[in-house]
């Protein structure tokens, strides 16, 4: 495939082709991050399409997506590299009698025994890859410090092998749910993007792009309903875009072309997944009012 030149117009076109509908601000920010070769830090509530953006980016440039999922307690061993200790041991056992000691030592710390973890893999890759560091706010501060060292120089040193430099600077996307504020140092090195839930109009576009069979009326009503539900303070887990789409697909499968009270009652659990949220919906909004709301109000 021909290598795609990164311009805002190209990005807009390919993003739309791939069904990722977004606005100019997002496109400009992504473009800048690509051009300046700086990591892109995306923050926002769960389910607004942060991870999706990285995936789409890898499709746009037809390259691999290397994903580092962060969690509490993630350390360098799991993120960067680890010696295959078990294999080294086996090697020692096997060659106990035969091999010359010095050769063996040389051997044991060669790349053969190195377990590449996502960061090293991204740096060593021949192709320019997309490195997705997901939910970086889940790690602790130590790891964050280590991370921005890697991200600023794109080189790592393995004591036994020496320094490894990136062959290609990968496109780095970091995502955060903002559960913990990230350090200033990390933020400074990144281009920052705050993703919010889409507006009603944008969500209609998304729904239509992803569910081609859906009718105009239904997509409008779904978008309005979801936006109303998201604005309710008592609902803790706001419906994500993916859940909106699931809901839409379910309604299409049920051959509904309008949002009715019954349909809402039957399918609500696709949108709200905890009992307390469903209770909050029932007491604050209710299926009847939701139906009225999406019907009467003009958008």
């Amino acid at each position, binding site marked *: 495939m021909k290598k795609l030149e990164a311009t*805002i117009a190209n990005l807009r076109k390919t993003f739309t082709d791939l069904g990722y509908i977004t606005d*100019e*601000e997002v496109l*400009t*920010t992504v*473009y*800048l*991050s690509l*051009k*300046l070769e*700086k990591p892109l*830090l995306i*923050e*926002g509530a769960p389910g607004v399409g942060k991870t999706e953006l990285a995936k789409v980016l890898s499709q746009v440039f037809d390259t691999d997506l290397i994903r580092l999922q962060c969690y*509490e*307690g993630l*350390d360098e061993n799991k993120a960067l590299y680890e010696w295959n*200790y*078990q294999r080294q*041991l086996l090697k020692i*056992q096997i060659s106990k009698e035969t091999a010359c000691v010095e050769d063996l030592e040389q051997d044991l710390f060669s790349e053969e025994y190195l377990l590449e973890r996502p960061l090293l893999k991204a740096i060593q890759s021949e192709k320019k890859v997309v490195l997705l560091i997901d939910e970086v*706010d*889940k790690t*602790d*501060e130590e790891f964050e410090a280590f991370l921005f060292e890697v991200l600023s120089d794109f080189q790592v040193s393995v004591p036994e092998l020496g320094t490894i430099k990136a062959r290609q600077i990968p496109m780095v996307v970091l995502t955060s749910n*903002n*559960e*913990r*504020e990230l350090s*200033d140092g990390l*933020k*400074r*090195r*990144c*281009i*920052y*993007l*705050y993703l919010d839930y889409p507006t009603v109009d944008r969500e209609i576009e998304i729904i239509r792009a992803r569910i081609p069979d859906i009718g105009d009326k239904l997509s409008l009503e779904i978008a309005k309903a979801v936006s109303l539900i998201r604005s309710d*303070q008592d609902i803790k887990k706001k419906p994500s875009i993916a859940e909106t789409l699931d809901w839409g697909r379910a309604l299409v499968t049920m051959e509904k072309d309008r949002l009715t009270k019954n349909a809402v009652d039957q399918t609500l659990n696709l949108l709200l997944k905890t009992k307390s949220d469903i209770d909050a919906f029932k007491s604050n909004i209710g299926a009847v009012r939701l139906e009225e709301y999406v019907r009467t109000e003009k958008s």
Partner: protein
Amino acid sequence: MKNYLEINVVRFIHLLRHAGIRIGSGEVIDALNALALLDLSDRDAVKAALKATLVKRPGEQPVFNKAFDVFFAPPEAKEKQSTEYRQKLDEHQQQLEQAGEELSFQGTALDLSDKEKTVYASIPDKDREKLLDYINKTSSGKNVEQHFKPLLESVVKGSLSYWRKSLRDELDLSDRPQTGDQDIDALVDAVGSTGEGGFGSLLEEDMQNIADKDLPRAQALIRKLARQMVARISRRYRQSKKHKQLDLRKSIRHNIRFGGTMFRLRYRSRRVQKPKLILLCDVSGSMARYASFVLQFIYGIHAVVGSIESFVFSEDLERVTESFEQGANFNATMLDVINRSSEWGRGTNLAASLRTLRSKHAHILTGNSYVLIVSDTKTMALDEAVREVSQLKRRVKDIIWLNTLPQQEWEHGKTVQTLKNVVRMYPCNTLSELEAVMRRKIII
């Protein structure tokens, strides 16, 4: 003009910094590099570029949007802003001068700060005349001597401080920005005078003044802060493979199954004990709301705390742990506690309360427990209270005092000064201060 773009961007950043956004010089360079890649006539693109490179906290986005609109406004609008600002400054200066003339004692001006003069200029006409009348009478009566002046000053100051509190919402007592560049001053003023709405303002608001309609928002904010904190510290109590100290005994034992070859290593990790918290909340009079916020915060972080014992006190102490542990509606419980305590009367007696704690709940005072006192330090029998506090301090790991008085008022209070010598005291007047105290790792 040469470097026109650079100068403008730097001036804009100057404005953002004055609006409280932290921007490093590396980010300035990023911003300029980013602009070089874009069509500068595309306003939205420029805005997106500056936002992406300079503003990295969700809470700062409204400020940025406002600043961008103000800074990159058409020249006419800018000119208007600048004139308005100059007018505002002149008016303020006039007010100050007038106040200085009026507030005098036998021809010499009273020694009042600019802020106090501003307050004076803002009080309703009728009340201002009353105050002025009082001053005139005092300074012109018989047997009036020069040394009455300090007395009059303190009376006037007292009255103004009353007005300052009651006019709090209308007054603009913030210091005028001083950047040395009048255009930027005007812009900073324009940015600053817009309400932000978001969580930012709630964080800095005196907890006592948080309106009832903002309570749900405040509670959501507390939950969020508490969750962030739990996420940050919970890891410390987990077993970890990261400690690189080998536990030889465990490793050998574990690897016997592999014939003694060290196949899986075991590491030593330190067990950290979770602290126990004993909360003493002053619920007399106006303290109730602070207590309710602190309690909510503490219960929000219960996952990283060993156990929480909570007490409320005013004239005496009462254990309320059970009411909160039942998981009943927090607000209802709190209301119940407060209503009960208001029956006790209005005074606070810390000494008596601490005595009750020592005699009736001695078993919870251990070397692993922290005592958190939430109070404005106003108590009867101060000396005795100090004695009790120092005695209590010997029994527990530490006492931390969360003082709900704004920090600038500390120097005036005798009780604050006295108690500060005995315990560690932190300001806890706003939610952000409450969070800062907890974050400082004093407890966890």
